[in-house]
């Protein structure tokens, strides 16, 4: 803005400025807004059902949030490149199902196979999007239908011995670490989250990720091998989804062919609520973590309200839309 536009006779109100500055401060830190929303939701739960808030409840919320947060972590990385991965749920289901089916070979082998499933799906997605330039929506949509179709067809051949969820996975997903409030899944979640948060900020890959999402053409002209960045991102996303699937099967303690599919849309919603732009280049994992926890708390609030499935869905959808709207209007003012 040029100085000529400022009219000197306009009264300057420091009070209003301070309010605007405070508003700006909140807008610059979406985490503050998200934390407030989370606290409000928890207060609503507590008001509706006194005694809701307990150490055990915190543990339950965290252990249900962990799988969603893993799926949403992958989704965040992909969305930062202006893509979307609609195969996260199918990948997570396949990884969890095959892991349970191969459990008789030993826990370590079964877990390795689960990660391998993620690696393969991610490689195909990454080659499609990065090398062949297929639209990410179409590529991952097609991949989701290939993975879940193939899993259904060959479900039997993936099972050797008695299918079961290994004790290690079960313990990791729902076991308590300290008291009842801190589940053991945090042992996995916290380091991975730290790695993603620090990696996005300080590593070359992280910064290239934002750059590719912001302007892929400028990146290519600057000498970045965009296809390699995309390939790595989709592989990471699928592996994170596979881990999320393994954690989820640990929470549920039974594997079926539709296991993680209810988490597909929430994985996108968590990222959007968390402030990552669907057009890429803006956002990060910290918002996504809060987004995932908010969605889990919201779900438990709606269960507390004893609403029918129909009403629950309507409220859930409206709140996601409302949060996205708040986000869009508040960032537009900047």
């Amino acid at each position, binding site marked *: 803005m040029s100085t000529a536009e400022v009219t000197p006779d306009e009264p300057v109100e420091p009070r209003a400025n301070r309010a605007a500055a405070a508003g700006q401060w909140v807008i610059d830190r979406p985490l503050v807004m998200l934390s407030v929303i989370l606290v409000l939701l928890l207060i609503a739960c507590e008001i509706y059902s006194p005694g809701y808030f307990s150490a055990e409840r915190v543990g339950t919320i965290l252990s249900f949030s962990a799988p969603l947060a893993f799926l949403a972590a992958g989704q965040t990385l992909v969305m930062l490149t202006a893509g*979307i991965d*609609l195969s996260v749920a199918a990948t997570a289901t396949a990884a969890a199902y095959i892991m349970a089916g191969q459990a008789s070979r030993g826990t370590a082998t079964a877990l390795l196979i689960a990660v391998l499933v993620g690696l393969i799906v991610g490689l195909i997605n990454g080659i*499609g999007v990065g090398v*062949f*330039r*297929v*639209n990410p*929506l*179409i*590529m991952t*949509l*097609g*991949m*989701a*239908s*290939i993975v*879940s*179709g*193939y899993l*259904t*067809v060959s479900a039997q051949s993936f099972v050797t011995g008695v299918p079961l969820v290994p004790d290690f996975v079960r313990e990791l997903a729902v076991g308590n670490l300290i008291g009842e409030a801190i589940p053991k899944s945090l042992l996995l979640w916290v380091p991975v989250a730290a790695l993603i948060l620090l990696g996005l900020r300080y590593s070359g890959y992280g910064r290239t990720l934002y750059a590719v999402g912001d302007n892929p053409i400028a990146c290519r002209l600057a000498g970045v091998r965009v296809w390699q960045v995309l390939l790595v991102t989709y592989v990471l996303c699928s592996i994170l989804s596979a881990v999320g699937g393994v954690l989820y099967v640990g929470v549920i303690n039974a594997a079926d062919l539709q296991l993680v599919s209810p988490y597909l*849309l929430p994985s*996108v*919603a968590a990222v*959007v609520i968390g402030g990552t732009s*669907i*057009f890429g280049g803006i956002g990060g994992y910290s918002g996504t973590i809060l987004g995932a926890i908010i969605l889990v708390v919201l779900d438990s609030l709606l269960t507390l309200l004893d609403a*029918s*499935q*129909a*009403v*629950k*869905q*309507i*409220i*859930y*959808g*409206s709140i*996601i*839309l409302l949060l*996205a*709207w708040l*986000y*869009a*209007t508040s960032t*537009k003012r900047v």
Partner: protein
Amino acid sequence: MSTVDEVSAPVGRKGTDWRRVGNRHGWTIGVYVLLLLLILAYIWALAPVAFTSFDLKTIVLGGLPLAFAAMAQSVIIISGGIDLSLGVMVAIINVSAASLMEGKSFGSAILISLLLMAMGIALGTINGTLIVLTGVPDIVVTLAMSFVWGGVALLIMRTPGGGAPTEFQSLGTGSFGSEWIPAGAIVIALILLVAWLPIRWRRSGFAIFAIGSNRERAYLSGVNVNRTRVLAYAIGGFFAAMAGLALTATTGIGTPYSGNFITLNSVAAAVLGGVSLAGGKGGLVGPVAAAFCLTLVPAIMVFQGIDPNYSQVIQGALIVVVVMIAGLLLLRERR
């Protein structure tokens, strides 16, 4: 494929420029060739049993709901949007039709259909208005709305049920004139002629292509971008209503969960039918054929004794490979 830029190409040339026809309609022609090949494969898979008019009707009624859903998604994608709540909108119309029409006469069933078409337009308008008002990306709004509309569908009908008069069902399952002309095909052709073409060749139709192609340039040329975006979603809502009615006519009942597979398959059919996800390119004729292609694949596999679940794998692979080839062709064209 047609683009807005090509529309303004010099007119009045004598004779047919085959290269231009190939460029503009090559993709659509290709999809129809694929459909023909798949029908031949269907006949071959059926052998030694003869292919009768009944089989033709089965093919048409199997693909009818998806064909309308593909048209809905195509209009929206051409305008530069995408509607992930399309399937549940279809489900809303489906359950409303089945619960309202049960035990009614043909006349009142037609009246109810008209009412539900208006309701479809209203649902689409709500989606479009929310997108324009909130300024949130299309994909996020319609994703959230898919939860909302899904809840509404469940409110109307909790478990599959309801019904429709037989005469109404014959609109989807019957034949028209000759045994070899399925009524469903006539309905699609009629809707394309009566509901889409008048809009397509009018200012508002061009505006839909224009905002999909380049929103800023469309705005600078005097197109009311927001109104056109809402219009595209409203037209999509109308076609979604047709898909819901077709679903009621072909299955005879309402199912609140019927929408899940429709949303994703409608996007797939639109893309396979030559609509560019970037917007501004494509038409509705190609996606109709693509929808039938997508429903023929599992039918053929059933006859071959292959696990029909493989069809999901093949559908997925088909979509990815086709889009990949299209991308490579585009790259070659640019060089």
